[in-house]
């Protein structure tokens, strides 16, 4: 996942601050939580988007 796609998923700018990312992640996660009728796949994508935005993973095209 690219940073661009991650920002789109969370509805943020690519330059959003970590606080904004966390807030947006909570909001989108509530809307797509598997326990509340959301799908597992979308929830995992939302989590991945948060990780990418916070720089925990560099996306799937990293060599390491």
């Amino acid at each position, binding site marked *: 996942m690219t940073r661009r796609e991650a920002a789109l998923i969370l*509805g943020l700018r690519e330059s959003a601050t970590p606080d904004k990312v966390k807030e947006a992640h909570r909001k*989108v996660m509530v809307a797509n939580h598997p326990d509340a009728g959301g799908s597992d796949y979308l929830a995992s994508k939302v989590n991945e988007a948060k990780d990418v935005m916070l720089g925990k993973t560099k996306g799937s095209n990293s060599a390491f």
Partner: protein
Amino acid sequence: MAGRVIVNLIVMSSGVLARAFAQAYRQALQNASRNGVAHETIHNMKKVSKTMTESEARQILGVTENAPWEEILKKYDSLFENNAKNGSFYLQSKVFRAKERLESAAKKGAEGITGLNI
């Protein structure tokens, strides 16, 4: 005398070098353009394969292989509404595309069945 010979040599070798550089530069340009073309075709191929597969559509809506159309619609409605309220527009559009993809697949299946009936 010796000086003239040396100057001649330098002039000649610099001419050869200049020609070699020009040729190398042309070759490099050619290679670059070829690589660029290859890069673009790969990019285009990626774009083509980016259209959603049916299995991905099912994953997005969280329905199984043999879920009835009503269940798909129910899932779609709730996901679409949730993302309209406080989700993201991007995920909402993904949900919509997933429904569209499954709809076309279902339609194709129905057409196939009617085709058999005829």
